[in-house]
């Protein structure tokens, strides 16, 4: 055992073991905590997640510009984010390779004291993913550049011949790398130049390499591939306009990507410049007592490998832990998770995830959908914070949040609104399978079979949605109008028929829900949403007018919240309500009495009664009606 520990603590085995532990932690964190499925899904926020289609035609599109091969490979590998654990494997491997390449470079420049720097980029990557941004493409380009740096170093150290051969090797690698990784080539050129300038003492070569960083993108990018000069120098780099212009979130967090790119050149620069300065200083300060003491402690520390291993490992994991602790964003994760579960119709999970930050409009919106689909909307709606604008995200802020609205529109039967939202999302978020699937579905519902086929055929080339698409393509072959498809027929029954014209694909809540019910009295979702709208806007007259629609559905009793609204209406108008033979439950009657009792106890002083009412009746409609809010027990 002591022997084993000695081996562990020896630097030969210690480093790989520490790395192994670090990357096991890295993997588990990504898989279990971050959950890369959420990044694949995108949550209506990540606009740069790539799509991938099988076949040559898709591949061909990546061959015509510098950086295309890395884009293609990244697009392929990113698809594994769909399966959480597999995505975590991909990202971990990428981070590990970055770590290995960094280490190789540091060894090559004899900066063994700085080899801890190899963990900086992986830690930054963890922060990037913790922040729910997608930077896999940029980091893939970085990895390509680092691999080429290692290749260059390996070739020139094995072959110690004259500089012209090294220059030739550099130029050949440059052209290949530029084609493969676009603007990330600049990193390769800069690292090679630093190496030649500061560590090999070949300033002419270094300057030539720096010059090539300006020339090669122009010649290969602009003149050969005819790309714009902006893209020639910046494509795949963190400061590409595609990142800075389109991605609001990416723009805010771009500093992390800059750091990932800059960490190695800065380290090399510091190591190179510091080397000379340090030598001089050591000579000057050898007589300084304090310096000798520090140097003594340091050299003692360096001699004790076991201690060194433990300390450096603790520091590494401590830094990683702190970085993740301070960078995590639970609200953001909740938003991503809630959207993911809602899009996959995982209602219990959606409700569970929504418990945190349930005061965000979008989360309330999903909660209402989840409650409806679990048959609880007219019972538990006020167990969560509520606002009328959350039902169909009609608030001004959400008018352009197309991603977040299309599913509720499909659920209710507002196919054109959904189509408008989805086509805008298609351009903004790319030809993502989740969008194509819905566009195919709603075009089948609208009997636009030609357009549906196009979406289905595109979807059949994806990795994970092909079966669904092929199944529908086969069905269309035998049943072109999908007359035998129950789901399509059901959705056709729900579809809105009355045409409204508006400047945006807008939902005029009350009219459109009423029209849906006029078309199909059995449209349960339209009914419950309309009633919820009346409850939330406290339009109890209209609520009572629509109460007879209860007969169109199979409710065993009057839903609890409806009973409470009926009590309020009776209390306010002093008139009986026609219940069509239904009975108010004794529990609701008891609730009503209890609420009134407490309210009267405080002499109808709303403010004074708040706490007690909130405690006992916070999830009732009585409470919402009086206070304009619900009081969720957290």
């Amino acid at each position, binding site marked *: 055992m002591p022997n084993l520990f000695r081996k562990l603590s020896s630097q030969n085995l210690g480093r790989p073991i520490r790395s192994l532990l670090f990357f096991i932690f890295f993997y588990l964190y990504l898989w279990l905590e971050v959950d890369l499925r959420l990044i694949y899904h995108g949550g209506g926020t990540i606009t740069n997640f790539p799509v991938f289609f099988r076949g*040559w035609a898709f591949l061909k599109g990546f061959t015509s510009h510098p950086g295309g091969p890395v884009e293609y490979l990244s697009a392929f590998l990113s698809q594994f984010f769909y399966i959480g654990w597999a995505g975590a494997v991909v990202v971990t491997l990428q981070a590990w390779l970055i770590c290995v390449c960094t280490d190789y470079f540091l060894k090559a420049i004899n900066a063994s004291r700085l080899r801890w720097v190899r963990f900086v980029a992986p830690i930054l990557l963890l922060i990037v993913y913790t922040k729910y941004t997608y930077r896999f493409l940029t980091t893939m380009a970085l990895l390509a550049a680092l691999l080429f740096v290692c290749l260059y170093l390996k070739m020139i150290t094995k072959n110690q011949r004259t500089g012209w051969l090294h220059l030739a090797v550099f130029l050949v690698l440059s052209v290949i790398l530029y084609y493969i990784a676009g603007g990330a080539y600049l990193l390769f050129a800069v690292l090679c130049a630093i190496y030649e300038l500061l560590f090999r003492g070949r300033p002419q070569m270094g300057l030539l390499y720096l010059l090539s960083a300006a020339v090669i993108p122009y010649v290969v990018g602009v003149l050969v591939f005819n790309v*714009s000069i902006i893209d020639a120098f910046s494509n795949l780099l963190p400061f590409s306009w595609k990142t800075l*212009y389109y991605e609001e979130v990416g723009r805010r967090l771009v500093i992390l990507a800059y750091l990932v790119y800059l960490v190695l050149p800065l380290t090399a620069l510091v190591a190179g410049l510091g080397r000379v300065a340090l030598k001089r200083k050591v000579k000057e300060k050898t007589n300084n007592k304090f310096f000798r003491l520090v140097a003594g402690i340091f050299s003692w520390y360096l001699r004790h490998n076991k201690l060194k291993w433990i300390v450096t490992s603790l520091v590494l994991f401590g830094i990683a832990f702190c970085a993740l602790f301070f960078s995590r964003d639970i609200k953001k994760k909740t938003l991503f998770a809630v959207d993911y579960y809602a899009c996959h119709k995982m209602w219990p999970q959606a409700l569970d995830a929504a418990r945190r930050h349930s005061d965000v409009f979008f989360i309330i919106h999903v909660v209402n959908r989840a409650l409806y689909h679990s048959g609880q909307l007219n019972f538990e709606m006020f167990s969560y914070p509520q606002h009328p604008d959350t039902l169909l995200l009609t608030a001004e802020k959400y008018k352009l949040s197309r991603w977040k609205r299309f599913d509720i529109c499909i659920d209710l039967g507002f196919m054109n609104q959904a189509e408008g939202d989805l086509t805008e999302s298609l*351009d903004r978020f790319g030809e993502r399978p989740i969008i194509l699937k819905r566009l195919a579905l709603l075009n089948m519902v609208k009997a636009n079979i*030609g357009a549906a086929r*196009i979406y289905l055929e595109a979807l059949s080339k994806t990795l994970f949605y092909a079966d669904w698409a092929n199944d529908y393509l086969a069905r269309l072959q035998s049943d072109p109008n999908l007359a035998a498809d129950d789901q399509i027929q059901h959705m056709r029954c729900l579809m809105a028929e009355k045409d409204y014209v508006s400047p*945006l694909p807008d939902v005029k809540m009350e009219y459109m829900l009423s029209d849906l019910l006029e078309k199909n009295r059995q449209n349960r979702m339209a009914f419950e949403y309309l009633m919820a709208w009346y409850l939330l806007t406290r339009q109890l007259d209209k609520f009572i007018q629509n109460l007879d629609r209860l007969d169109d559905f199979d409710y065993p009793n009057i839903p609890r919240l409806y009973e409470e609204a009926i009590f309020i209406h009776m209390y306010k108008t002093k008139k009986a309500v026609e219940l069509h033979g239904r009975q108010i439950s004794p529990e609701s009657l008891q609730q009503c009495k209890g609420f009134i009792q407490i309210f009267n106890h405080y002499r109808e002083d709303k403010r004074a009664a708040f706490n007690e009412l909130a405690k006992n009746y916070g999830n009732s409609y009585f409470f919402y009606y009086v206070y304009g809010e619900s009081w969720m027990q957290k």
Partner: protein
Amino acid sequence: MRKHYRYLFGFPNVLFRVWGPFMILVLVVLLASVLVYTLRGNKVAIDRYTFIGRGPSIRPDYCGTVIPPNIAPLNFLVQESGSHYCVRIYSKQGEPIEVFSRSPKIVIPEDSWHELLNMNRGEQLYFDVFVKTRNDRWDRFSTITNKIACEDIDGFLVYRKIHPVHDRWKKMGIYQRNLENFNELPVLDNGYYKGGCLNCHTFCGNHPDKMLIGIRSPIYGSSAILAEDGVVSKVGAKFGFASWHPSGRLVVCSIFKPRLIFHSARNYIQDIVELDSALLYYLLDSKTVKTSPELSKKDRLETYPTWSPDGRYLYFCSAPMLWSDRNKVPPQRYAEVKYDLVRISYDLENDAWGKLETVLSAEDTGLSILLPRISPDGRWLLFCMCNYGSWPVHHPSSDLYMMSLKAAEDTAQYKYHRLRINSDQSESWHSWSSNSRWIAFSSKKGNYVFTRTYLSYVDQAGNVYKPIVMPQKDPTFYGSCLKTYNVPELIIQPVQATGEKLARVIRGSRKIAVDMPITMATPKAGVAPEPWQERE
């Protein structure tokens, strides 16, 4: 040097020495196997077959039509089940082309195709399709017959590709396609200038030497990019639909205030209403923008200008403005707006406009008359009509119509007829080839969403033949293509100015400042584009 290569491939010395020759041998054997496998069975003599008394089902539909003698191979997909496919393509002269394939995708060799078509201009072109069924028997379908026209189509087609978006966009581009092969290159895409809109590419008489492209960029503002004999400049104005005077000395453009509207329960979801519009013209020599009272009446909406090939008349569309509030969306009675087709004479030397005359009134047709385009020989006026409004691409009711201007000259009557090439979806955005024998147009045939470019032959008598969709190398291409192709313009040569050259001008600060006689909602630089900014 050998040693150097070893480094390049990363082989350690000993591995290279021992395994090198063996690996090369393995590679050669593998390559040979692949070659033998792929070439296997590529020459099969089909002497026995069962005749199927119907034509094969193929996609795209390239049956019974007239094709350009210089068109790229019409690759197609045989939609008949089988294990092997064989297509024999032949005409009166020359060697037949035989394509054997295990896949139903029939990809025709380009050189042989062009040779065959060139030798047989004006003759019939035949396709015999054979399919090997599962029980090892060949079926032969009835021969597909097409005619090879005598006249070429212009070699290049310029169009804009974009997702079928409505009010926001991310990526779009104007591309030029070589119709003789499958090469497609960008003229300009919005990536060159950090996103934004680009539209309304217009050429002077099918020549790319004079070109105008509209740009709207939140960073660089709105402008018109003018390429003139290799010189690119930026005009600081937002021009809409434009038409070059045949002399190349002026361009007439529409300016408008379009707004998107959405239908909540129609099969098409979007439409565009022009709240206001007028025509202006830009004189290239003096670099000035002008208008005339007849081109910009306050109570009317003017749009879609097009010059007669002799440059004596400007044709355009004009409708009464039915609303007083020019900001309300949708405006009152927007679904009643129908455009007339009018023309006005012009004297280039004196820069003088004549009197306005109505060519065809919406009252007579009952439909809104839009997008007039006159054939370069001046004989035919092609236009579209739809139920109402000014954006036919959004209206399934939009169809193409033809009018003989020659007959109108003789009889003083403007007679028109609906073309048989129309589908139940929107047909629009048509253009003529320089020899007046071909038209390219956009159609949503078969779906409500995606426009595709079709090519049709027009004979001397003005008969328009069954269109073919612009061919693609992969015959299944359109089956999963999520982009729409709009504003197809035929040109005889490729656009020479590179995307970067055009973009440098867009990004640059130098521009030709013009005083606009009328202004209409021109977004300024730094201001995000508004949702109304249209793209089709």
